[in-house]
């Protein structure tokens, strides 16, 4: 009993220390940082969306500094090839003159991978991340290379530039646990950003968490139990995103072509577990599920032609779903 309380307490402290350290560099964006940490602690990956200049890359870089993990960055471009991401076999020559194929690992072999402007690469290159994100391994030829835990992909994309970009395939999109939207800073936050970034020395975050500690935190999160009634609520939320389903809502039927997959429910439950721990609870509540519903489900709903034509935001549909879906039944 006391052990678990200590575990929760430790989780709290570690989480807060990471947030505090990131807060030395990043102004505002507390929810974004929380979302990124939730994905990291639940074996997920995160997609950050926002217009240029809002600090997407900065957040990811700061997180890498704070966690003291191996960090790589790939700038996605239209001519990027899968081999540039996962690595390739190169011909080498031994001292005796014998030649052999040696695997040269790509930048994907790291703990934290920043896939910057992921939608600028072709779907072929984007798909190179699929296996790595889901299986945490990379297959080259006949050999499968295991990636080191924690493996965490943070991808960024720009929502307004459409020319020269390739929208992420649905399968790729579904592999991101959360999709976080970075919003424009407020006036006060802008002042603070100016104060911090227009001086001789910019503040730097120091490492506060080691690899092992991150893995321990993951275990703690996954240990949090969830009641069947609350889990049922998460499932009903997911099913409500499906058009023409018994649980679906009018806006879903009108604008959605495909709803969220079971990965969506996983994202809800896992995100809910982090929220429960952050609220010093040893169980997931409906409120936790509702808190993470937007980032967990917004990118898993595929709009139909009508929805695209009318520029419908999936957040609007989710709002309706959350409003109309009742809490756990008796």
């Amino acid at each position, binding site marked *: 009993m006391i052990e678990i309380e200590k575990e929760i307490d430790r989780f709290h402290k570690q989480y807060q220390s990471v947030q505090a350290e990131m807060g030395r560099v990043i102004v505002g964006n507390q929810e974004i940082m929380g979302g990124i940490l939730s994905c990291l602690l639940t074996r997920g990956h995160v997609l950050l969306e926002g217009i240029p200049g809002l600090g997407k890359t900065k957040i990811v870089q700061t997180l890498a500094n704070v966690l003291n993990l191996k960090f790589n960055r790939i700038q996605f471009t239209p001519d990027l090839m899968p081999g540039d991401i996962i690595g390739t076999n190169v011909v080498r020559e031994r001292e005796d003159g014998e030649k052999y194929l040696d695997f040269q690992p790509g930048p994907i072999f790291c703990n934290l991978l920043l896939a910057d402007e992921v939608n600028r690469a072709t779907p072929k290159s984007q798909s190179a991340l699929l296996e790595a994100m889901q299986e945490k391994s990379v297959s080259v030829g006949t050999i499968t290379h295991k990636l080191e835990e924690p493996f965490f992909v943070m991808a960024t994309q720009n929502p307004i530039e459409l020319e020269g970009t390739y929208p992420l395939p649905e399968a790729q999109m579904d592999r991101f646990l959360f999709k976080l939207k970075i919003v424009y800073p407020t006036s006060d936050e802008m002042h603070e950003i100016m104060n911090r970034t227009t001086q001789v020395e910019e503040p730097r975050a120091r490492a506060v968490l080691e690899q092992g500690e991150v893995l321990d935190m993951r275990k703690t999160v996954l240990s949090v139990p969830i009641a069947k009634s609350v889990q049922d609520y998460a499932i009903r939320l997911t099913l409500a995103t499906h058009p023409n389903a018994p649980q679906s809502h009018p806006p879903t039927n009108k604008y959605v072509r495909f709803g969220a997959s079971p990965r969506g429910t996983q994202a809800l439950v896992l995100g809910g577990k982090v929220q429960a721990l952050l609220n010093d609870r040893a*169980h997931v509540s409906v409120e936790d599920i509702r808190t993470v519903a937007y980032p967990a489900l917004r990118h898993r709903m595929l709009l139909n032609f009508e929805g695209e034509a009318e520029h419908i935001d999936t957040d609007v549909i989710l709002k309706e779903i959350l409003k109309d879906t009742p809490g756990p039944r008796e």
Partner: protein
Amino acid sequence: MNDSTNTTDQSLILGFLARVDRRLRVNEALEGLSLGLWGLSGLLLVSWLFGIWERPTPRTALLLIYGVALAGFIAWVSTRRKGLKAPAGVADERSDSKDALKSSLDFIGLTERTRWMDFQIHRTAELAQGLSPAEIAPAVLPKPFHYAAGLALGLVALLSWNPSWLKEMDATTWFSASDPLTADAASAEEAAAFPEEQEQLQELDEALEALRQRELEMPESLRDLQAAKEALAASRLEMEQLEMDLENLGTELESTAALADLAEAMKSKDAEKAAELLRSLAEKLKNAQTSEELQALLESLKDANVQQADLADLLEKLEKAQGNMSQESLAEMAQALQDAANQLESMSEQMAADQAEAMGEEMQSLQAAMGQQQAAGQQQPGQQQQQAGGQATQSAGMTSSQLQMAQFQGDPSSAVPVDAGPAGDATGPGGGQEPVLGEATTLDVQLEMELLKTEERDEPIPEEIFERLSRQEKSTLNYEALSQRGSYAEDSALGHESIPWVYRSLIKQYFLSIVSKSEAKSESGSEK
């Protein structure tokens, strides 16, 4: 954690939830009771309205049934168990424990539990110890309960006391008065117009009331009822006599050319029209400018050799008018004629009421005759009408509606006294006119009218151009070249939209139709 601690925690949670559940069921029972009290109020009202309350046996039976039903309902509400999930949900909501009780209850039901689950159960047990079931689910009398109880008690007290004004307010008669088949909107006016009949009705009411109060014996009641019936028959005879007199007066006035219309109206028993003509005569007298005009009117009135004595009042007034004319007091003479007109109008109303009654009887006999003929299936519809009309004439005498019918069928023997408008409409055009046909309702005519309407449009609407070209598979419409009716203020925030808003829905529908077709094709291809 050892097992005993675990059991204690579980029992603590379950005990707490059971207490909350009991309180919730008490509240439900109170709600049921308030509902039952509303029902009791309704029952009391119904029993009073239908006179059940004054009879001891049905009243006792009704209250007994109600009491048993209510007790059964409350017992059912109090004893049924829906499990502890509902109280857990209520307790979570009211204690703001973020589903702790509900989750713990779920975990308690599991056969295999992790240490985290046990930890949660322990935490919830601690939470439950700090909570009071009375605070979570306080036993509160619902607001409607107070109103319902007040109303029910008030009604019981009132009906038990049964004051004199309540006795006078005989609710059982309300239903007959409010019945649309029997209620007459003009009953009050009739009461004023026919005081004798009203008196007879009053007597009937008194007799009925006495019968109800059991003050009268059966023979007495029958005698009273017989007397009332005879009085009503006498008043009907009187009315018929009045109508006959009016007809005779018309015949007498017939000889005077100036009063021909008046005579015609009186002969046809159209008292309303006659009143109107008398009024116009009064107006003429008032407005007569020259002595020649007055003299002519006087002569015409004198020529009218009125000898009918039964319409004493009317004639007296007409004579008064004549007398006033001789004294050249035009205003008084006009007033006398107005009075005569008013009297005729009241006669007209009475006659209209009689006509309505006669028409009802006639319709009944007509329906009966038609029903018999349809069953037999031997005669044509025209013959049926004639036969039915004949039967009605035999039974109820010739009425105005029959006169109208005869006129419409071109029967020259029938008089043409009433107008050709709808029955009862005394303000319509005079007799002998062609029946006015309504608006043409055939489909052809309607279509022709629609065609004319569409031809009125000078220029085709843009949607029509678009659809026409689409149907011909020549949809090469340059949207940008079309005149833009939508304003740019309606454009998207980014302002990149080059297609006017007016046509967006059309374009969307077009592409949607293409999408649906291509999907259908691909589905059929895949099936192949």
